[in-house]
């Protein structure tokens, strides 16, 4: 009896420390932030008191609608560009990499070996006003005489795209690599043109990778504030910049908390919609587990 009981309790014992940590320092903080978002007052004299101020949400949405829209706009653009850059690269690595496959994959994650902030500073160097890129574009006439790239939408979206590109490529590669070669052969038997094989066989089979890659790129991109801060101006600021400054500079905790929840809600809605499209198994990576 006791032996059976212990066996039944074992998985819970194994789970306890890790899950406990996440409950205590991930889930519970969300509760505190929810309470914070419903407080009113000021940071210096009275402090904030819980008054169930639901108008914090409507006010936050009204005051920062531009930054919200910009965040999802920038994240959308960056995700699309990352997909356009990443899909052909993942395709080549998966189907034509040969013995260079692992080396090429390593090159894809090399950017992660350099601190995020320094990667972004590197883009500041590359796009700087008297740098090679700007000079060339000016000489060719694409950019005006005193045209710049730094501090524009272009630089911020370029930075975001770059910083999250590996998150797009790796899942794409994983799903392309898993495609059964026999499926492709059958495709070539069926269709004459390679374009049709790609559209009817390869692309549909790689959809889980597309869905995962889009999600892994879009969610962090929408919440990012580093690129807008270092490569842009307040005109390019995203919702992350507002949350950061409301929390850490102005100490307006209720507004910042409400904004955080709105960002999380929008992100979760996107995840759920995607999960419906893609099926949760591909998303959670739990395929192949004992059922």
């Amino acid at each position: 009896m006791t032996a059976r009981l212990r066996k039944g309790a074992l998985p819970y014992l194994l789970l306890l420390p890790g899950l406990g940590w996440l409950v205590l320092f991930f889930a519970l903080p969300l509760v505190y932030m929810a309470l914070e978002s419903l407080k009113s007052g000021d940071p210096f004299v009275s402090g904030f008191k819980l008054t169930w101020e639901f108008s914090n949400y409507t006010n936050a949405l009204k005051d920062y609608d531009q930054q919200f829209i910009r965040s999802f706009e920038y994240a959308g653009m960056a995700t699309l560009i990352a997909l356009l850059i990443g899909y052909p690269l993942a395709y080549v690595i998966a189907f034509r990499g040969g013995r260079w496959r692992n080396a090429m994959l390593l090159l894809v994650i090399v950017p992660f070996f350099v601190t995020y902030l320094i990667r972004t500073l590197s883009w500041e160097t590359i796009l700087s006003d008297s740098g090679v890129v700007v000079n060339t574009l000016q000489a060719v006439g694409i950019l005006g005489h005193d045209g710049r790239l730094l501090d524009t939408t272009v630089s911020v979206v370029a930075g975001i795209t770059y910083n999250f590109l590996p998150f797009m490529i790796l899942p794409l590669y994983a799903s392309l690599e898993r495609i059964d070669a026999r499926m492709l052969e059958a495709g070539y038997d069926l269709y004459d043109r390679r374009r049709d094989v790609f559209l009817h066989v390869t692309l549909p089979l790689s959809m889980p990778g597309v869905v995962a890659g889009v999600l892994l790129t879009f969610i962090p991109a929408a919440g990012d504030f580093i690129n807008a801060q270092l490569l842009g101006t307040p005109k390019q600021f995203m919702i992350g910049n507002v949350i950061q400054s409301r929390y850490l500079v102005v100490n307006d905790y209720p507004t910042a908390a409400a904004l955080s929840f709105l960002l999380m809600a929008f992100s979760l809605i996107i995840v759920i919609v995607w999960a419906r499209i893609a099926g949760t198994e591909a998303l959670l990576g739990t395929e192949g587990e004992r059922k």
Partner: protein
Amino acid sequence: MTAALRRRGLDWLLNVYALLALVYLLVPIAVIIVFSFNNPVGRFNFIWQEFSVDAWKHPFAVPGVQDALVTSLKIAALSTLIATALGTLTALALVRYEFKGRAPVNFFIFIPLATPEVVLGAALLSQFLNWGSPALGFATILIAHVMFNLSFVVITVRSRLIGFDRALEEAAQDLGATPWQTFRLVTLPLIMPGVLAAGLLAFALSIDDFVITNFNSGSTITFPLFIWGAARVAIQPQIYVIATMIFLVTVAAMIVTVWQQRRAERMAAVRPDEPELSPA
């Protein structure tokens, strides 16, 4: 004939496109390494002046950078140890046992990964401010880093466990090993590459984290926080030197891990008449 020619042209185009994508990924890294040898005029290291090894001779000459780096390394090491241990246990429970609530737990562990970092950081700060303790600093940064590393560790180790051959453990039990001996002598060595990979990932994420740390650091400065502060005032080539050093160490660690993994896979493929274990 023309169709074959066009096909080859398309092939060539696709390869060139992929190559350009790889170059795009690597150029900023090359810029950092090159500019670590710059001797810049003024406070920012953005314009190439002349080749110099001064910054490499005195990489820690910038006041404060050494302390920041040491703090980052300490937090990365500690948070990696804690997160890898706890995450491995969690992954074992999730893959090896059927229990009530496994599906929700799987989902719960996935949520932090789908939550924007700025939300994770802000929420944790709300809690610490309400609690009033521990004081913002080393301890709160460590707590935060273990939190965001846990999900990554669970997912990495879990993917390794899924391809695991249970027969090897049963063989050990048949030979008279106790459950603990089986775990220590059979299970752990076999999942070690996954655990190592998870640990490496956790270390890299921890040493790189800015957003969540920024919210919970108080007056403690980590290396990314130092750069953030410096980015407004002055960026010395030393910062690029240190980034290059971290880069080289990470590459070396990566190569060792890959080599370890290959060795473990060969070891796992012990039965000669069975096909080799394919990496999950």
